[in-house]
């Protein structure tokens, strides 16, 4: 059987008819990628630019902020600086104003002070270096000071007014009191005056015036004065008793016043007694008495009798012992009268002692001394003096002791004559150890006198040893002084201790008459005189002590020494005597006192800030100051001040340039220490320098620091230079090259100088002020005479031109015979 093939079904149509890709699908992302990259690049650039811009803006903003903060801080600092300067300036002006103001009314003071304030405010407003806010700030900050100064000044003006008014009232009251006291208590005018006085006192109290008077005090004073007058006039104790009763009855006097007056009564009572007592004492001393009168005097005193005697002139002396109390009389009996006679006795003894002593000092030999001593034992002498042998013995031993003591003092106290001391000691030995007029030597006496004599003799031996040592010491000290005088005290060692060296220096200095010579001597020795060092250091400490307001003598001495050292320019002496810690102060002092008064200089130093780095700040202006030669004339600070000084006139330029730059530079540094801007400090220094200097020929000269120095320095310079050139005709110097300068700050000595300060040799190159003034006066007279002569000639010429030729002149030109003018 054949097989019939069957239909075989195909698979799934979808599988059989699958879609076929004719190419890969394109990706939009892929094709858009470059464009997107471009976009992204743009975004990146944009973001980067934006970020950069943001950063730069932030940076610029921050920078601007910092610059702004800095500028504002700088502005504030500048404001502070200007404020401080203005404050100082204003305080000084106001202080000066208040010190010189004499207003006695507050209105007057305020008006004048307000003008000062207005000027000051205007000066602030007119500044171009300040912004309106700065000016407003400064003025605002100054306002309390304005108010304080004005208030203080008003208070002072009021106080002055009160003082004046008080003084007037006080003088008025005092005058009336004086007038009233001339009158008796019951006099009508006295009563009227007292009434007026009391009214005046009440008015003064109402007005707050301090007259020192009150109604009660005046009443008490009048009562007291009246009673006091009575007390002084009282001559007896009874009168004083009566006054005492009146005091107790007084209704005006208080207990204290009464007690005071009672004391015065007692005083007067004692005074009366004392006067009588003193009269008696005086009479007793004046009496010419001998030893026999003593008993009678004592008896008179004891009984209160009157004793009548004579004085040495033969005048009568009456002593009424009854005028004093018994106790006083007893003191005469027990003490005063015996003392009078003992004095007479002692006086004789002392004369004996003094006679021998003066003879020994005068050169008496030992033999002469023994002869003097022997003469005291003569009977005439004993009779005349009332002495006996034992008295003379005691006097001679006393004489020996006093001579020995004098010799000891001479040896101990310093320089002495060796021969004189030896002669004195030999005399003592002779008096004590030699027999005199056959008597045993005093040293052999077994009693107290012998003991005393032996003690004296032993001390004589000691004094001789002391003298030898003192001579050796003196010789060494003299060697030291010689070394100082030779300038070798610190070079040659002769075994002196430091203290001994100081003594040698002191001794050598004491031989120099002037401070300048002393400084030169110290400079020659390169030595320190410690007394000066201590003096200068202590002076600095006292000057800087805020509690010290007055300059003591020690400080004055130290300042004189320092000024002399500075003027002489002895740097070695300066270094040796100024301690390193004090140098800043003394350098400032030196600089500032060359311009300012000592008080102002001290005030500035106390205001300075010592921590300020002066040299660093000074660098800002150093180029303007540290100039050489004529470069100075180009500096702004100089030209400004110079034109101000000369008024712009064409005058000779100064040639003492180093002096100018040194002083102005140092002064600038001192002002910088005040915290002032360097430029302002330089300007201030320049102003102050030119304020205190004047141009004299070719130098700028410090105006002498004395009150109202009257002389015209330029004229003095002209006269002295003329004089110098006349005296030195051989010198080839033009007058313009010469000027004058005062020597070492003195106004008394003037020297001819050349080229801005160098001394010129020659005749008449040094003048004292008197001589200079004489020459100027002489020149003035000569000039006046010449001017008068010239004026007379001019006057004659004027008269002649007005009146025509004189008759004689006309006659001279007319021929007397012809009557016609003479032919030429």
């Amino acid at each position: 059987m054949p097989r019939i093939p069957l239909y075989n079904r195909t698979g799934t149509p979808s599988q059989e008819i699958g879609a076929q890709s004719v190419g890969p699908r394109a990706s939009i992302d892929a094709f858009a990628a470059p464009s997107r990259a471009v976009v992204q690049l743009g975004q990146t650039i944009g973001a980067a630019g934006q970020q950069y811009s943001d950063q730069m803006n932030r940076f610029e903003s921050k920078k601007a902020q910092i610059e702004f903060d800095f500028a504002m801080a700088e502005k504030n600092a500048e404001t502070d600086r200007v404020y401080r300067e203005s404050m100082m300036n204003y305080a000084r002006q106001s202080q000066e104003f208040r010190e010189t103001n004499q207003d006695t009314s507050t209105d007057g003071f305020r008006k004048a002070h307000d003008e000062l304030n207005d000027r000051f405010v205007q000066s602030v407003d007119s500044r171009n270096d300040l912004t309106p806010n700065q000016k407003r700030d400064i003025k605002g900050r100054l306002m309390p000071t304005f108010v304080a100064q004005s208030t203080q000044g008003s208070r002072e003006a009021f106080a002055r007014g009160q003082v004046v008014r008080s003084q007037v009232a006080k003088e008025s009251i005092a005058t009336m009191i004086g007038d009233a006291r001339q009158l008796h208590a019951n006099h009508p005018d006295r009563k009227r005056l007292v009434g007026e006085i009391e009214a005046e006192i009440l008015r003064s109290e109402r007005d707050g015036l301090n007259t020192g008077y009150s109604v009660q005090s005046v009443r008490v004073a009048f009562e007291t004065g009246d009673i006091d007058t009575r007390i002084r006039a009282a001559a007896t104790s009874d009168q004083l008793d009566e006054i005492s009763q009146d005091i107790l009855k007084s209704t005006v006097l208080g207990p204290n016043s009464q007690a005071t007056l009672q004391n015065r009564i007692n005083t007067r009572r004692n005074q009366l007694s004392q006067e009588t007592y003193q009269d008696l004492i005086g009479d007793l001393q004046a009496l010419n008495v001998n030893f026999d009168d003593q008993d009678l005097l004592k008896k008179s005193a004891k009984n209160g009798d009157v004793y009548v005697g004579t004085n040495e002139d033969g005048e009568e002396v009456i002593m009424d012992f009854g005028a004093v109390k018994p106790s006083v009389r007893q003191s005469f009996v027990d003490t005063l009268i015996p003392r009078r006679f003992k004095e007479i006795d002692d006086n004789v003894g002392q004369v004996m002692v003094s006679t021998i002593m003066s003879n020994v000092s005068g050169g008496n030999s030992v033999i002469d001394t023994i002869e003097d001593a022997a003469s005291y034992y003569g009977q005439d002498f004993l009779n005349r003096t009332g002495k006996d042998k034992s008295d003379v013995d005691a006097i001679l031993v006393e004489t020996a002791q006093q001579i020995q003591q004098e010799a000891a003092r001479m040896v101990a106290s310093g320089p002495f004559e060796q021969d004189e001391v030896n002669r004195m000691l030999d005399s003592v030995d002779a008096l004590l150890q030699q027999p005199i007029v056959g008597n045993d030597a005093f040293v052999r006496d077994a009693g107290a006198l012998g003991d005393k004599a032996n003690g004296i003799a032993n001390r004589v031996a000691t004094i001789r040893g002391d003298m030898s040592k003192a001579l050796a010491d003196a010789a060494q000290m003299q060697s030291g002084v010689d070394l100082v005088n030779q300038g070798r005290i610190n070079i040659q060692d002769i075994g002196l201790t430091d203290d001994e060296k100081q003594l040698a220096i002191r001794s050598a200095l004491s031989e120099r008459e002037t401070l300048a010579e002393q400084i030169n001597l110290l400079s020659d020795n390169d030595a320190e005189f410690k007394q000066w060092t201590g003096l200068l250091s202590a002076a600095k400490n006292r000057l800087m002590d805020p509690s010290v307001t007055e300059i003591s003598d020690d400080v004055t001495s130290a300042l004189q020494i320092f000024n002399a050292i500075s003027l002489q320019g002895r740097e070695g002496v300066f270094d040796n005597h100024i301690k390193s810690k004090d140098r800043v102060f003394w350098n400032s002092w030196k600089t500032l006192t060359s311009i300012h008064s000592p008080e102002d200089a001290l005030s500035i130093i106390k205001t300075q800030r010592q921590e300020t780095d002066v040299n660093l700040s000074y660098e800002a202006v150093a180029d303007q100051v540290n100039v050489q030669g004529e470069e100075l004339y180009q500096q702004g600070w100089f030209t400004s001040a110079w034109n101000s000084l000369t008024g712009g006139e064409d005058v000779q330029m100064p040639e003492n340039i180093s002096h100018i730059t040194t002083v102005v530079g140092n002064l600038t540094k001192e002002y910088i220490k005040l915290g002032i801007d360097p430029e302002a400090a330089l300007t201030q220094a320049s102003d102050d320098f030119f304020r205190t200097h004047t141009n004299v020929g070719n130098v700028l000269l410090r105006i002498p620091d004395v009150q109202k120095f009257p002389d015209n320095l330029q004229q003095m310079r002209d006269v002295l230079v003329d004089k110098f050139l006349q005296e030195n005709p051989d010198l080839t110097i033009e007058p313009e090259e010469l000027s004058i300068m005062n020597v070492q700050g003195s106004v008394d000595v003037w020297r001819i100088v050349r080229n801005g300060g160098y001394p010129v040799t020659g005749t008449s190159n040094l003048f004292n002020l008197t001589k200079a003034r004489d020459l100027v006066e002489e020149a003035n007279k000569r000039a006046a005479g010449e001017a008068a002569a010239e004026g007379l000639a001019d006057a004659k010429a004027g008269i002649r031109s007005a009146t025509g030729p004189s008759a004689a002149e006309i006659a001279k030109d007319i021929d007397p015979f012809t009557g016609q003018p003479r032919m030429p």
Partner: protein
Amino acid sequence: MDPMTIAAGASAVSGLLGFKGNRASARAAEQTAEYNARLAENEAILLGRATTAREAGVRQASDSLAGSQITAISKSGVQVTGSPLLALANTYFNTEEDAMRIRFAGNIEQMNKESEAALSRATGRSQAAGFRLAAVNSLIGAASGVAGAYQQQSLLGLQKDFYTQQEKA
């Protein structure tokens, strides 16, 4: 060069590049979509052709099978009745069914490709529109950046002016 100029320049460059880039992207998107759409359309055409060819092949095989069936029947001397007939009918009907299924499947695939082409174009336009919008946005952004820089600069100037006034006051 001051920051404002730099910022403005950077913004301008950014805007310009953004504008041009987005515009280029828009063009690229449209062109790519068009390209893809055409690919799909081409594939639809190819699918139609393949469907027709496949249907023709089925029918040709069916005709051949029917001929073989008839030949086999004839050789056996059997009348075309009963099972032989059923076999022929089966071939016939199966052929038709397969042809219909092939045609149906081909239609579906073609429709799919046409849809793909349409979708591709729509997507391209849509993205191009987005890119164009972005391009405009870039320009606006650039302008905004320049304005911002100018504003910053103005603020800075005002700040400096203020400081200067304070310093001079």
